[in-house]
C-alpha cells in the first residue's frame, strides 16, 4: 500500500474512530448545546411560529416549566425517556426528521440532566474572557500548549529556515521569496532574524494586497452588478482603499466606521467616502420588468446578510422569512438592521450612477487648477461692461427686427426624429422640439464613436421657400452636446419622396471662424473640419437659414432632413426646432440670432418701460453674443470642456450618500414583498446583544458601526480573529467561519479565541499587532509535516500541534507563477485588468452582448486580485482555483483539488507564457549543463535544491523534449508564440521550447502551488 492510500485510510479511521468517552463533567456549551441545536431547536427553539407542543428547549426555565426534564433526575425526565424509547411514535427526534442521536449523545443528555441540567449562554454571546499570560510569553503559544498538554499532545519542532521564509512570504505578502532572500535568511543566525523578517514583510506594500483578498471575499467586491445583464459598476477605488487601509495598518474599528458610515463621519474625506462604497457592493439589476419593491427587499436582505456575515459571524438570512430557528435572531432584528441602510441614496432598479470622483493628489491639484481658471474667466465675463452699450443698442434694434420678421416663420410641430447610430437618443415633443441626449450605456461601453446622423421628417406647406433650423439653448450649458457646448453640422440635405430638394443658400445667426454656414450645404459630409460650427456663441440660440432653390409645389409635402454630425466627440445639436416660411427670396439669417422668447418679449417692451431686471437680462443676453466677447467666451468654453473631459476620465466610485428621505422598512411576513401588512420598523440593534441606550433620535449607520466595534459586542473581534487564524493555520479555531451561532462549531480552543479577541480589542483593533503575535509564535513556526501518531490523534490538525500545508488561493497561484517567470508587474492599485481569457466565454451574456478584450502591455501581468471580477462569469482560470463569484459574502473559500486546475496550469496561455518566459530566464540567467540549470530553476520556484531523483526526472524530460523539438522546428515556433511577451531571437528555439516544458512541469508541481 502506498503512503497516500495509507494516510487516507488513517484519515477515514479518524473519522469513524470510536467516539470519545462521555466527559466526567458535562459542559453545556461544549457538549449539550450542539446536540440540542442540531436535533431539537428546529421545532423546540427560538421561532414561535414553528414551535411544536409549545415546548422550547433553548431556555432552561421554559423547558423545566414544561416538564421536559427534572434537573438532577434523568430517570424521571420526559426528555430522556423520549430519546431512549423504542416506540417510533414517541421517539425524539421523530424519525421523519431524519435526525438520529448517537448513543454517546443520548448518554451526554442523560448525564447532563443528572448533573443538574445547567445551561450556559451560547459561547459567542458571552463577553470574551482574557486568560492571564505570563509576562514575556506569547499568548498563542501559552494557550495552544496548555490545550495540547490537556489532550496529551506535544508541539512539533520548528520548520527549517527555507520553509519558514517561504511560509511567511506567502502568508504575509502572497508572493514567494527570491532564492537570494532565502539564502540571506538561512545565513542570518541572529535570534532576531525571524522577527525582523516579519516586520519587514508587514511594511512591504504587497502586504495590503495579500490581506485585501480575504476581505474582498467577505464584502463581495466585484466589478459588475451581478443580476441579469451583469453590467459594470464603478467600485475599483474601493479595492484600492482596502489595500491602502491594510498597508497603513488602519485599525479595524476605524476601518469598520469608514465602510459602514464613511459618509456620516464628522471628519469625512474622499477616503472615508470611498470606504463607504461597502454599502454599494450588493447585487443590483437592470432587467426590464423587475419590480422596485422586489429589489428593494433583495437589496435590504443582501445588506443584512453582509453585515451579519462580515462582522458578526451570524447567519441572519433565515430571518428574512421567520425568526431564527437556532439563534436568538428575530425577524424584527433582521428588518431593523436593514433599516439602518434605508437612507442610502441609490436607484433600486437600473443603471448605477457613475459615482464620486476619486482623485489622487495630482488629480486634486489639476481639478483645483481648472476650477480656479474657470472662476477667473467667469469673473472676467461677469464684469460690468459699459463700453458695450452702443453695440448693445444696435443689437437690440436688429434683434427686434428679427423678432418681427420671425412672424413670417411657422414652427413645424409635426416632426419625427431618429438617429442613425443611436449614440444620441432623439425625442420630439408635441411642439416639434427635438431633444437629444447622449446614450449613457453606449458611451460607457465605448460603443459611441462621437458622431451621428439625425433624420427629421416633417410636412411642408405649398409654396415654402425657406427652412430654419434653430439650435435651442435649454438646460445644458451650451447648444451642442459636446463638452464645450458646441456642435459641427457637417451637412444638411433635404429630400422629398425620392428627390433631393436643392438648397440655394445657407446663412446663420452666428458662424464660428472657419466653420461657416455655407459648408453645411456644400455636399461634403465626411470631412471633419468641414461644417457649420458655433463655438464662441454657444450660450444662446443659433439658427441656420436654408433658402430652397425652388418653392415647394405640393400641399403638405413630406420632407426628410438629414443632419450629419461628423466632427466627433459628440459635436451634435442638443435641442432643435424646425420652422418654414413662404416669404419671398432671398431667405437670409438676420444679422443677429433670434433671441429667446423671454428676451423677445422684453425687446417688444418700450425701453423706458423696462424694469431693472429686464434691463439686466438684456445686457446678459447681449453678452452671450457680443462679438467683442467672442474670445473670452471661447476661452470659457475651452476650460469648461477641459473640466468636463477631466471629470469624464477621472476614476469614479459609487459610495454611500445619505438621503434625507428614507425608504420605509416593514417586516415582510414570510419575506413576501407584496405583503405590506407588516409593521414598519426603524433602525435598531439586535435585541439579544448588549447595546447602548440612544434616545431622542433615530439610529444611524454610524451608531451601527460604533456598536459593531464596541467592546461590549462579543462577536466582532471573535469573528475577525477566527478568520485571521484561518489565514495562518488553514482552518478557523471555530471551523465554520461564517457561523459563530448555535449551529456553528464551538471553538476547539475557546480560551485562545477569546484571548485573541480581547488582545485585538485591547490593542485598539490593531491588525498588525495580532499578526505579529501569531507569526512570531512557536506554534506558527512548527513543521507542517505530521507523524502517524499525530495524524491519528488529530487528523485535521485542529489543535495546532503542527502547521498545516494548504494550496495557495486562486489569485496567489497566478501571482506565484508570474513571479517565478519574472513577468509579474508589481504595480499596486488602479482599474481592474483583463488578462487572457478564452474567447466566447461571455457569449451567454446579453444587454449588451460582450466579448472580453484582452488587455495589452503590463496589464496582462498584474496580480490576480486586479483581474476584472465579472460576477456572472468569473474569470475561469480563477474559478478553477475556487475564487468565489462574489455574489454573496464568502468567509471561507473551498480548497478543491479538481482536474480543471491541471488544465489551467498546463494550458491557460497565462501559464504557458509564464513557462516559456521562465525558460528564457533559465537559458540566460543560469549557466552550466542541464542539471545545473534545472537546479537553478527549481531554486527559483521552490527555493530549494532538487533531489537527485527530481534531477533525473527533469533532465530526462528535457532531453526527450529537446530531441523531439529538434525534429519539429515548426512546433517550437507555435509554442513560443503563446502570449504577448517577446521571444529573444538570440536563443535557440528548440532548446527554449524544451526548457519551456521543464519550466511548465515545475510550475505545475503540487509543492509550487502549496504553502507548507
Amino acid at each position, binding site marked *: 500500500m502506498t503512503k497516500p*492510500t495509507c494516510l487516507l485510510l488513517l484519515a477515514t479511521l479518524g473519522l469513524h474512530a470510536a467516539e470519545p468517552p462521555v466527559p466526567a463533567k458535562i459542559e453545556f456549551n461544549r457538549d449539550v448545546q450542539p446536540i440540542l441545536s442540531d436535533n431539537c431547536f428546529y421545532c423546540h427553539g427560538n421561532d414561535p411560529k414553528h414551535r411544536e407542543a409549545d415546548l422550547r428547549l433553548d431556555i432552561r426555565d421554559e423547558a423545566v416549566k414544561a416538564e421536559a426534564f427534572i434537573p438532577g433526575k434523568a430517570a424521571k425526565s420526559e426528555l430522556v425517556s423520549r430519546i431512549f424509547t423504542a416506540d417510533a411514535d414517541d421517539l425524539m427526534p421523530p424519525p421523519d426528521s431524519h435526525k438520529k442521536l448517537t448513543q454517546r449523545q443520548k448518554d451526554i443528555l442523560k448525564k447532563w440532566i443528572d448533573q443538574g441540567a445547567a445551561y450556559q449562554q451560547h459561547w459567542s454571546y458571552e463577553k470574551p474572557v482574557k486568560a492571564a499570560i505570563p509576562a514575556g510569553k506569547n499568548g498563542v503559544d501559552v494557550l495552544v500548549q496548555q490545550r495540547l498538554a490537556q489532550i496529551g499532545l506535544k508541539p512539533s519542532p520548528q520548520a527549517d529556515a527555507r520553509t519558514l521564509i517561504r511560509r511567511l512570504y506567502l502568508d504575509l505578502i502572497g508572493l514567494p521569496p527570491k532564492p537570494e532572500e532565502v539564502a540571506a535568511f538561512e545565513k542570518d543566525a541572529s535570534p532576531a532574524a525571524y522577527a525582523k523578517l516579519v516586520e519587514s514583510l508587514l511594511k512591504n506594500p504587497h502586504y495590503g494586497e495579500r490581506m485585501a483578498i480575504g476581505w474582498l471575499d467577505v464584502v463581495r467586491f466585484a466589478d459588475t452588478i451581478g443580476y441579469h445583464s451583469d453590467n459594470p459598476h464603478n467600485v475599483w477605488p474601493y479595492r484600492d482603499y482596502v489595500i491602502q487601509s491594510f498597508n497603513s495598518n488602519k485599525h479595524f474599528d476605524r476601518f469598520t466606521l469608514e465602510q459602514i458610515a464613511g459618509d456620516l463621519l464628522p471628519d469625512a474625506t474622499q477616503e472615508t467616502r470611498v470606504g463607504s462604497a461597502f454599502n454599494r457592493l450588493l447585487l443590483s439589476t437592470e432587467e426590464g420588468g*423587475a419590480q422596485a419593491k422586489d429589489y428593494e427587499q433583495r437589496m435590504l436582505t443582501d445588506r443584512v446578510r453582509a453585515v451579519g456575515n462580515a462582522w458578526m459571524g451570524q447567519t441572519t438570512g433565515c430571518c428574512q422569512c421567520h425568526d431564527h430557528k437556532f439563534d436568538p435572531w428575530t425577524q424584527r432584528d433582521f428588518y431593523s438592521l436593514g433599516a439602518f441602510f434605508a437612507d442610502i441614496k441609490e436607484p433600486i432598479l437600473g443603471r448605477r450612477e457613475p459615482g464620486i470622483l476619486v482623485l489622487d493628489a495630482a488629480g486634486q491639484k489639476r481639478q483645483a487648477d481648472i476650477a480656479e481658471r474657470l472662476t477667473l474667466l467667469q469673473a472676467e465675463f461677469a464684469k460690468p461692461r459699459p463700453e458695450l452699450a452702443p453695440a448693445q443698442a444696435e443689437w437690440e434694434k436688429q434683434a427686434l427686427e428679427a423678432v418681427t420678421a420671425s412672424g413670417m416663420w411657422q414652427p413645424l410641430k409635426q416632426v419625427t426624429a431618429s438617429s442613425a447610430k443611436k449614440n444620441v437618443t432623439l425625442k420630439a415633443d408635441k411642439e416639434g422640439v427635438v431633444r437629444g441626449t447622449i446614450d449613457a450605456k453606449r458611451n460607457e461601453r465605448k460603443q459611441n464613436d462621437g458622431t451621428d446622423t439625425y433624420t427629421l421628417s416633417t410636412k411642408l406647406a405649398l409654396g415654402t421657400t425657406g427652412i430654419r433650423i434653430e439650435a435651442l439653448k435649454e438646460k445644458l450649458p451650451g447648444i451642442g452636446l459636446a463638452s464645450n457646448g458646441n456642435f459641427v453640422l457637417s451637412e444638411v440635405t433635404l429630400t422629398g419622396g425620392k428627390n433631393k430638394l436643392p438648397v440655394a443658400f445657407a446663412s446663420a445667426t452666428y458662424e464660428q471662424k472657419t466653420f461657416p454656414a455655407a459648408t453645411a450645404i456644400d455636399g461634403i459630409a465626411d470631412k471633419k473640419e468641414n461644417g457649420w460650427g458655433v463655438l464662441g456663441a454657444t450660450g444662446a440660440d443659433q439658427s441656420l437659414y436654408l433658402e430652397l432653390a425652388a418653392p415647394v409645389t405640393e400641399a403638405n409635402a413630406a420632407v426628410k432632413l438629414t443632419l450629419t454630425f461628423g466632427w466627433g466627440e459628440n459635436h451634435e445639436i442638443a435641442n432643435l426646432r424646425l420652422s418654414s416660411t413662404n416669404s419671398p427670396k432671398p431667405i437670409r439669417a438676420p444679422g443677429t440670432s433670434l433671441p429667446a422668447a423671454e428676451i423677445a418679449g422684453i425687446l417688444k417692451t418700450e425701453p423706458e418701460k423696462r424694469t431693472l431686471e429686464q434691463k439686466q437680462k438684456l445686457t446678459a443676453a447681449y453678452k452671450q453674443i457680443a462679438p467683442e466677447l467672442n474670445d473670452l467666451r471661447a476661452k470659457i468654453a475651452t476650460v469648461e470642456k477641459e473640466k468636463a473631459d477631466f471629470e469624464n476620465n477621472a476614476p469614479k466610485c459609487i459610495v454611500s450618500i445619505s438621503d434625507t428621505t428614507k425608504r420605509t422598512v416593514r417586516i415582510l411576513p414570510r419575506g413576501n414583498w407584496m405583503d405590506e401588512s407588516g409593521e414598519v420598523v426603524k433602525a435598531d440593534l439586535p435585541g439579544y446583544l448588549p447595546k447602548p441606550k440612544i434616545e431622542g433620535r433615530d439610529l444611524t449607520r454610524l451608531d451601527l458601526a460604533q456598536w459593531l466595534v464596541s467592546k461590549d459586542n462579543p462577536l466582532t473581534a471573535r469573528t475577525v480573529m477566527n478568520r485571521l487564524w484561518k489565514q495562518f493555520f488553514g482552518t478557523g479555531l471555530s471551523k465554520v467561519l461564517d457561523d459563530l451561532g448555535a449551529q456553528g462549531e464551538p471553538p476547539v480552543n475557546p480560551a485562545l479565541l477569546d484571548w485573541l479577541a480581547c488582545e485585538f480589542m485591547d490593542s485598539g483593533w490593531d491588525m498588525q499587532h495580532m499578526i505579529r503575535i501569531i507569526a512570531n509564535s512557536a506554534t506558527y513556526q512548527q513543521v507542517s509535516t505530521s507523524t502517524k501518531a499525530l495524524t491519528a490523534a488529530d487528523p485535521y490538525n485542529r489543535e495546532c500541534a503542527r502547521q498545516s*500545508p494548504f494550496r495557495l488561493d486562486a489569485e496567489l497561484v497566478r501571482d506565484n507563477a508570474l513571479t517565478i517567470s519574472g513577468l509579474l508587474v508589481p504595480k499596486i492599485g488602479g482599474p481592474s485588468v483583463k488578462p487572457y481569457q478564452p474567447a*466566447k466565454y461571455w457569449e451567454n451574456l446579453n444587454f449588451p452582448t460582450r466579448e472580453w478584450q484582452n488587455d495589452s502591455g503590463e496589464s496582462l501581468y498584474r496580480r490576480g486580485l486586479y483581474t476584472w471580477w465579472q460576477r456572472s462569469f468569473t474569470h475561469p482560470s480563477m474559478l478553477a482555483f475556487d475564487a468565489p463569484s462574489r455574489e454573496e459574502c464568502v468567509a471561507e473559500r473551498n480548497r478543491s483539488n479538481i482536474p480543471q486546475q491541471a488544465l489551467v496550469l498546463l494550458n491557460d496561455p497565462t501559464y504557458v507564457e509564464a513557462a516559456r518566459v521562465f525558460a528564457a530566464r533559465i537559458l540566460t540567467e543560469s549557466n552550466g549543463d542541464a542539471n545545473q540549470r534545472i537546479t537553478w530553476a527549481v531554486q527559483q520556484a521552490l527555493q530549494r535544491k532538487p533531489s537527485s531523483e527530481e534531477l533525473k526526472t527533469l533532465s530526462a524530460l528535457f532531453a526527450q523534449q529537446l530531441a523531439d523539438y529538434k525534429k519539429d522546428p515548426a512546433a517550437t515556433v*507555435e509554442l513560443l508564440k503563446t502570449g504577448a511577451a517577446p521571444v529573444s531571437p538570440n536563443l535557440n528555439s528548440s532548446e527554449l521550447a524544451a526548457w519551456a516544458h521543464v519550466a511548465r512541469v515545475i510550475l505545475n508541481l503540487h509543492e509550487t502551488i502549496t504553502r507548507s
Partner: protein
Amino acid sequence: MHSTSAQTRRAFLGRTTQGLGSVALASLLQPQLLNAASRGVLGTLPLPQKAKRVIWLTMAGGPSQLELFDHKPKLAEMDGKPMPESFTKGQQLAQLQGQKLVCKGPMFRFQKYGKCQTELSELLPHIGGVADDICLVRSMTTDAINHDPAHMFMNTGAQIAGRPSMGSWVTYGLGCEADDLPGFVVMMSTGKGRNPQPIAARQWNSGFLPSKYQGVQLRSLGDPVLYLTSPNGVTRERQGRDFAAINALNKQHAALCDDPEIATRIAQYEMAFQMQASVPELMDIRGEGAKTLELYGCQPGDGSFASNCLLARRLAERGTRFIQLYHRDWDHHSLLKEELPLRAKEVDQACAALIKDLKQRGMFDDTLIVFSGEFGRTPMAQGNKGPIGRDHHNKAMSMWLAGAGIQRGVTFGSTDDLGYAAQENTTTVHDLHATMLHQLGIQHDAFSFKFQGLDARLSGVEGAKVIQKILA
C-alpha cells in the same frame, strides 16, 4: 441494458488510453483513488433507483404554454376583452405591471396526439409523435418572475445566489459513472432569433458544495472544455511527457510529506489527461451515421440544440450523471406569433429524437428527461414592446417529464379557464426537485448539506412533496 452502457464505456476508455503510448500514467495511480473521487456521498440508496441519470432541457426565456401545451378555448373567446380583475388583482406582474390587461387567445392551433390523445400545439408535431411516452404537467408554478432569479430558483431551489444547482446536488449524492468525463455537464444553444436573455454561470455552480461538483460547460465554439486543448506546438506525446514528469515529481514529493492532497492531485492530473482525449472524442459526432444525424436533424459542428441532444445521449452512454441543455431565446414579450414557431422547430424534432434514440438503446427506462422553462407566460397580451407577445408569468406553466419511472402518455394538473393560474394538482419547483431526487433513489428531505447552520436541501425546507401521481 446496464451492461450495454458499461461496455460502451469500457470500449471508450480503451480507445482513449491508446494515445498514452509509452507514458504509462495509469501505473502511477491507485485506481481506487480515482473511483473514490467520483463516488457520491450517499452510498447505499434508501429508495429504488429508477433513474440513473437526468437530461434536463431548459427552454430559457420562458416558452408560452398557451401556444404550446395548455389549450384554452375560453381564452380564445375572450380575445381582445379585458382580463377579469378577479384573476389579476394584487398579483405580481413583470413588464405588464400597471398596464391595461387584455386577454389574448392562443395564436396557434392545438391537436390531439397519440393513443393518449394529449392535446398539444400544431407547432410540436414530433413531440406529439412521442406523446405516449411523456407526462405533460400543466400545473407547475414558480416563485420568481424575472429571468435571473427564476433560473436560480429552478436550478437551485432558492433565489439567493450561492446555492448549489441541482446537477451539483445529484453528482454530490450519487457521484459519476464516467472515469474520464465530468459528472455534471451543461450545454448551450441559442435560437436564431433576436435577443436572448443572458444566462449566468452561477446556474451550474456548485455553491457551497465542493467545487468538483460544479457543472462543466461543453462548448460548441473554441475549446469544448475551457483550457482543454494543449498549447500550440504541444502534441499529445509532448503533453503526456509533462504529465508523467509532474506526477512522478509529485509522487516523489509525497514520499517526503504525508499530505493526502498530493495523491488527489496526482489523480486529478490523470483525469485531466484523459479528458483531453475523451472530450474531443465525445464531441465528435461525425461517426454517428447519417441515420442518427437525420433522426435528430443536425450536422456535426453546427452547435444546434439538436446536436446537443445527440451529445446528451453520448454523455448518458458514457456515464455522465446530470446533463443540462439550455436553448435560449424563448422570451417572447413581442413577436410571439413570428418567433415561437422558429424556436419550436429548433427543439421539437430533437426532443423526440432523444426519446426515440434512448429507447432504441434501452436507456429510456433509466434516464429521466425534463423539459421546462424558468416560468410560464401570461394569458394577457403584451403590446407595449411591438407586435403582440406575452409577459412573464409564475402562476401557471407547463412542462413535461419522460422516462425513468414516470407515467407515459398522461397529463397531470390543469389551469383555470383562462390559463391564468394552476388550479388542479398545483405543483411547485420544490415538488419537481423532490420528484427528480426520488426517481434517482434519493430521499429528498433527508438529503442535506449543512450550510450556515441550516440543513440546506435542494427541495427546500418547507415540505416539498414527491408528485406521486405521475410516477408509474
